[in-house]
């Protein structure tokens, strides 16, 4: 079995003291960040990227650290959903529906541990899904030429637009804005400067890390300043009660968890969907399927297990297109892509043949992180509930300052800090207008390779633009892209109205 030997190699890489320690640190920080309202997986990972660089970590260790944060945040999001009825991050918003009523009935501890188990099952199965599906996708991706890659990037933007915003025009706007920002700097093919307006700092282009940290982390600080939410949680709500759920409850929820893990994984693999959609459709499906007595929404354990298994499975699923194709399926995986690009590793089919150590080491680390998270999130969940006591008037300045430190640590220039502040303001304004931020990030990340593939394809065919839709593979991709863009216009409004119902302003960065 090639797969098993690959996996064994991966464990050999992941099981060093350094990597285990990094995974532990990542899981801990991730759970904390997921639990705190206002710090979701994407900005959590974003502010930690500079840390990974300045520690001088190699590719595999940095990825282990950051994906542990990512998985951890998916676990952590549920804590404040259940205890406070405030989603810790956006994917956790569906967890409020049944989690909070359970806590009100005095079952907070049981709700937390049950959702921990659900998270574990979702993430565990999704990691297996990643192992099985990614190599198959790689086989298809090896057939891709430049024209197909261009179509694939277009597909990512169009389907992302389809689900991430209520207004397609706004997501198209966001994607164009991001791609436009990516064109700033010296043209890689001909060496002429573009859109630099004579500013030497811009010749290298905008650093996408600066854009990411500004758009995600700083805009969050502005949102808090606007609402002046400086307070802290109500202490009386943080009482847990019994920590372990009765076996019968776990057993009753098991079919739900298995079904929603599968569904969530699929939602995660689709480009642009991400964990929020995963938890949403998981909850809706289970409600339709098993809610015979109309108990969903009143503290039904199955209604709690469904979205948690779904969003954690989607988190694993979103890694599939990111690793196999280099096209992230969600906001947080876009940030992880930024990490890879900064480390000079190009994800995609070649990653699996050229850097198998990175891929399999990462996968092994995901398994390890999952067990660590299960341990952290059931017996030790009390530690994390205490984190919720930190008032945001103290937390948000720390977030802002760590963002500054990170960016300054990478570039050492005040100019980049100014650009980051600019992105922070832009992010705030765009969030007010409900313009999704993820397409902007994706645009700045993928802009250059999208343009290069376009130019390569057309140049190979002597300037014939029709080459872009010449092969069946390319045509299929374009067809999916168009369906992905148009379909939500027809049926999406209903789905999204449901998703937005529970959405609060502070968790508004979509994953």
């Amino acid at each position, binding site marked *: 079995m090639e797969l098993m030997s690959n996996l064994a190699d991966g464990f050999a890489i992941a099981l060093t003291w350094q990597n285990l320690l990094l995974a532990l640190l990542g899981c801990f920080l991730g759970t904390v960040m997921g639990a705190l309202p206002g710090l979701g997986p994407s900005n959590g990972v974003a502010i930690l990227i500079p840390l990974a660089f300045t520690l001088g970590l190699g590719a595999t260790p940095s990825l282990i650290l950051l994906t542990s944060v990512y998985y951890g945040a998916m676990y952590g999001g549920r804590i404040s959903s259940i205890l406070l009825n405030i989603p810790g991050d956006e994917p956790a918003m569906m967890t409020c529906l049944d989690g909070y009523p359970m806590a009100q009935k005095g079952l907070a501890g049981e709700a937390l541990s049950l959702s921990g188990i659900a998270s574990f099952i979702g993430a565990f199965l999704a990691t297996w899904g990643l192992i099985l599906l990614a190599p198959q996708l790689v086989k298809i991706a090896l057939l891709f030429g430049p024209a197909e890659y261009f179509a694939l990037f277009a597909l990512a933007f169009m389907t992302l637009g389809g689900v991430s915003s209520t*207004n397609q025009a706004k997501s198209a706007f966001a994607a164009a804005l991001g791609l436009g920002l990516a064109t700033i700097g010296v043209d890689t093919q*001909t060496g*002429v400067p573009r859109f630099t307006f004579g500013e030497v700092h811009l010749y290298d282009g905008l650093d996408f890390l600066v854009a990411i940290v500004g758009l995600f982390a700083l805009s969050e600080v502005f949102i808090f300043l606007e609402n002046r939410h*400086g307070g802290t949680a109500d202490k009386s709500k943080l009482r847990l009660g019994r920590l372990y759920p009765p076996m019968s409850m776990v057993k009753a929820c098991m079919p739900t968890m298995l079904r929603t893990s599968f569904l969530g994984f699929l939602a995660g693999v689709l480009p642009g969907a991400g964990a929020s959609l995963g938890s949403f459709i998981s909850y809706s499906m289970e409600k339709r399927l098993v809610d015979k007595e109309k108990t969903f929404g009143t503290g039904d354990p199955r209604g709690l297990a469904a979205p948690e298994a779904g969003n954690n499975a989607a988190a694993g699923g979103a890694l599939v297109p990111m690793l196999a194709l280099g096209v992230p399926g969600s906001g947080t995986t876009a940030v992880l892509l930024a990490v890879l690009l900064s480390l000079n590793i190009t994800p995609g089919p070649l990653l699996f043949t050229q850097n198998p150590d990175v891929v399999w080491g990462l996968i092994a680390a995901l398994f390890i992180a999952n067990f660590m998270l299960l341990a952290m999130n059931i017996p030790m969940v009390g530690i994390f509930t205490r984190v919720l006591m930190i008032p945001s008037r*103290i937390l948000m*300045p720390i977030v802002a300052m760590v963002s500054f430190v990170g960016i300054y640590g990478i570039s050492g220039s005040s100019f980049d800090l100014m650009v980051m*502040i600019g992105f922070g*303001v832009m992010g705030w304004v765009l969030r007010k207008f409900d313009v999704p931020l993820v397409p902007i990030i994706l645009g700045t990340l993928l802009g250059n390779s999208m*343009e290069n593939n376009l130019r390569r394809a057309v140049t190979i065919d002597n300037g014939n633009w029709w080459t872009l839709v010449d092969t069946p593979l390319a045509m299929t991709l374009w067809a999916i892209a168009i369906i992905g863009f148009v379909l939500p216009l027809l049926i999406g409004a209903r789905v999204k109205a449901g998703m937005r119902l529970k959405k609060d302003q502070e968790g508004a960065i979509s994953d």
Partner: protein
Amino acid sequence: MSNRIFGVVGMILAFGYVFAALAIEESFLSDAVGPKAFPLIIAAVLGISSAIIALRPDAEPDWPSLGRLTEIAAAVVVMLIYAKLLPVAGFVLATACAAAYLTWRLGSGPAEAVAVGAGTSVGIYAVFHLILGLSLARGPWGF
């Protein structure tokens, strides 16, 4: 109304982008596509989507009161000053001031703000510089 303004600003941005793209000097050695084509495609998408936003506006976003807006503007100014002064004043002092300001504006009392500001700054310095070895801005005193 805000959405219409937003759309119009987007259209102006798209036009500006087109002009800047057309002004790119092409090198004599160029591929079949050249450096202008891709920016022009993007400008088209940007322009069309902005036009749609302007013509079919969403519901009005919920703007904060003027007081809150000045709050954000003030925070931006403080951050810009922070970015400028960081290499001059050194990390610890600049960060303590900026963090204290933000903490104060988010609702702490003055004494708490100063304490939190100093604590944040020294804490970050200890973790990131002393333990992790990240190079931070050095002021006149070396920290």
